[in-house]
């Protein structure tokens, strides 16, 4: 077993689709069509478009692409912060490839690199730490972003830097946390949803309990799912079965990777290094309470927010209005007036067009002929 191809078996996918179609014919579901399901995670969005799952599903199921793509919710002012730090002559600025093309107010990190700033793409935060060891006369700033999936790796890297006394390594922390944003979406009430496909890799870190309120308080089924086509289809089936039985529970489809309590070692590393921010700005969604983390005072010496002067000024940009609507599922990507015309993966205006996990980029890449 290699844990990939087995979960892409076309025959089993066909059987699942038949079963989904059959379930959709049950009277209790017929009475509530369309069934609107939000997949929270950008990884799911990517798989759904890549395998064309939307077009294979029976009529009456609508997939809403949620806010779980960290690059897509990165405010342009935060990119400006990165650029201000990268402009310091002694700095090597390092981050994941995904963050390179996100437009700032004026430019992206990639553009700044082509203009001569020392900005490097790394695969892992540990690669950035290695840069610090190899370049003792430079300050290495790692821009850490992502949800709980990525937080432990940044936390462990920072702990390693502290243990080894690497004093030229800094972290600009832009880690965000998905649960408060789901709560804000549900509280908002703008989006009519029947249930969620939950983020498998965030859940392998945080476990299942943090979602309990979604089932209890909002009566929405929440199915934590793997990322292969069979995983997603099975999760949709489980969700429909809950709806048909008027149940709302947190259920784990991704049992091969996600344990109910999550990963305790990862949680401990995160808790040691990070603490919740009062509020944090998400591009397209605005400020959300407790939706981000910052570095604890014990690790202040590594905190780029304290060590470097960052430009002031925060505000929502006009052209992101549509992005916010897409993020909330109020607008389909191709309904945005900029989609595929001025905003494309090679010239992204909104961040949803930047990452292959952004709803707009995935839609453009895999559905182009159908939509345009």
């Amino acid at each position, binding site marked *: *077993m*290699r*844990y*990939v191809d*087995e*979960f892409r078996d076309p025959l*089993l996918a066909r*059987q*699942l689709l*038949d*079963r989904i179609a*059959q379930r959709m*014919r049950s009277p209790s579901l017929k009475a509530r069509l369309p069934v609107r399901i939000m997949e929270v*995670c*950008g*990884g799911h969005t990517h798989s759904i478009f890549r395998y064309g799952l939307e077009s294979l599903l029976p009529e009456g199921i609508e997939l809403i692409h949620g806010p*779980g*793509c*960290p*690059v897509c919710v990165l405010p342009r002012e935060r990119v400006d912060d990165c650029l201000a730090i990268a402009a310091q002559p002694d700095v090597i600025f390092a981050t*994941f490839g*995904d963050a390179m093309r996100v437009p700032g107010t004026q430019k992206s990190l990639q553009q700044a690199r082509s203009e001569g700033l020392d900005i490097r793409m790394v*695969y*892992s*935060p*540990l*690669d950035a730490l290695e840069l610090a060891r190899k370049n003792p006369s430079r300050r290495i700033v790692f821009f850490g*972003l*992502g*949800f709980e*999936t*990525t937080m*432990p*790796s940044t936390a*462990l890297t920072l702990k*390693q830097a502290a243990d080894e006394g690497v004093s030229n390594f800094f972290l600009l922390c832009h880690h965000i946390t998905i649960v408060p944003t789901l709560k804000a979406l549900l509280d908002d009430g703008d989006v009519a949803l029947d249930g969620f496909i939950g*983020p498998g*890799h*965030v859940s*392998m*870190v945080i476990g299942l309990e943090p979602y309990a309120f979604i089932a209890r308080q909002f009566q929405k089924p929440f199915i934590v799912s793997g*990322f292969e086509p*069979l995983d997603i289809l*099975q999760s949709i089936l489980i969700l429909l079965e809950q709806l048909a039985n008027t149940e709302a529970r947190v259920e784990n*489809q991704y*049992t*091969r*990777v*996600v*344990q109910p309590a999550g*990963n305790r*070692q*990862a949680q401990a*590393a995160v808790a040691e290094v990070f603490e919740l921010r009062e509020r944090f700005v998400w591009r397209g969604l605005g400020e959300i309470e407790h939706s981000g983390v910052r570095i604890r005072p014990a690790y202040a010496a590594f905190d780029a927010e304290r060590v470097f002067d960052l430009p002031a000024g925060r505000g929502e940009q006009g052209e992101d209005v549509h992005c916010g609507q897409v993020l909330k599922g109020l607008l389909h990507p191709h309904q945005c007036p900029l989609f595929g015309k001025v905003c494309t993966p090679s010239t992204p205006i909104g961040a949803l067009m930047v*990452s292959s*996990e952004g709803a707009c980029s995935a839609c453009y890449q895999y559905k182009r002929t159908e939509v345009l």
Partner: protein
Amino acid sequence: MCLGVPGQIIAIDDSDRSVAIVEVSSVRRRINLACVLNDAQPPESLVGGWVLVHVGFAMNLIDADEARKTLELLSELQSFADEQGMQEAGIDEIR
């Protein structure tokens, strides 16, 4: 961003730093095991096992039994679906 890829632990590279050689999509990489180690288990005991790899870290062990169970459940769906289909058709006829 939250992309994770299954990989198989081939060897322990540096016990002190919890680093292993892991084969991910046919490429061998140095991967940090800190999140999948506990005091009761020496790193060597994980060799041969599969982990979910994300940005240079093994984030969880992959449970082979659970993977098998999921696939078995999916394989059983067809016979179950046939049965249900017949039952539903039967009900329609009576109506």
